[in-house]
């Protein structure tokens, strides 16, 4: 068991956890996007680790490039929706998202 494996697994899991914690706990919509980005970074780390372990680094790089592209577009769309909501509500408070029920 190399220390690299231990640190990689632990760091990725803890980053995913803190990202999801931020996503579920925060009251600010932009912070939700930051949370998504943190989780995505952790997953990229996990993908790199997987590529190192199975020796398919080229395939992993192809995956990572696609994931990076997707995460940027997700960030753009999320920022667009959040900015439009800000124009309606006047702030980024997530607890104002309660117009839909019944």
């Amino acid at each position, binding site marked *: 068991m190399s220390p690299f494996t231990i640190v990689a697994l632990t760091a990725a899991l803890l980053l995913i956890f803190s990202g999801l914690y931020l996503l579920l706990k925060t009251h600010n919509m932009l912070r939700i996007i930051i949370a998504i980005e943190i989780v995505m*970074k952790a997953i990229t780390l996990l993908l790199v680790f997987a590529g190192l372990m199975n020796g398919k680094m080229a395939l992993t790089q192809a995956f990572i490039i696609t994931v990076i592209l997707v995460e940027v577009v997700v960030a753009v769309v999320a920022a667009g929706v*959040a900015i439009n909501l800000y124009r309606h509500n006047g702030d980024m408070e997530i607890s104002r998202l309660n117009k839909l029920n019944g």
Partner: protein
Amino acid sequence: MNNELILIVCMLVMLVCGVTAAMSRSMIKSAINLAAVSVALSVLMFVIGATWSAVFELSVCSGLVTVIFISAVSLTESKLDSTTQRALHHSRFAMLPLILILAGVGIIAAIVLNGFDVVSTADITQTEKPFREVFWNLRQADILGQIIVILVGTFAVVILFKERGKKI
């Protein structure tokens, strides 16, 4: 072994900066910490030889995403983070480092005590094809998907960011 040390340092930097980005009171600091996570990750990729993805990570994630954030923050800054809001945010996340340290110790203890190990599944007899060939020949569906993702991004920008004359 020197190499491994660099990798471990990179991952620790990622972890610390990530948690700081989650906890920090100011949005700008969060964005910068996020960029630092990206930089650490791309250094890690450079060290293990994944040059292509490292370049993408460095330019797109730590560059473009930070730009998106900072412009989003500056577009919406006025009442965004009032002092009470910041204090509230801080109080919500005061426990996070403690939880993380406990969880980290727990995970490491579980790994070490159980003798859990990740077996390498690499096939040493086969040499892998170069990245260029793999990307352009094996991942054609992904390339098509990327083109379509970029199309969605364009339409999203057109629809969501276009200024209207009157405010609805």
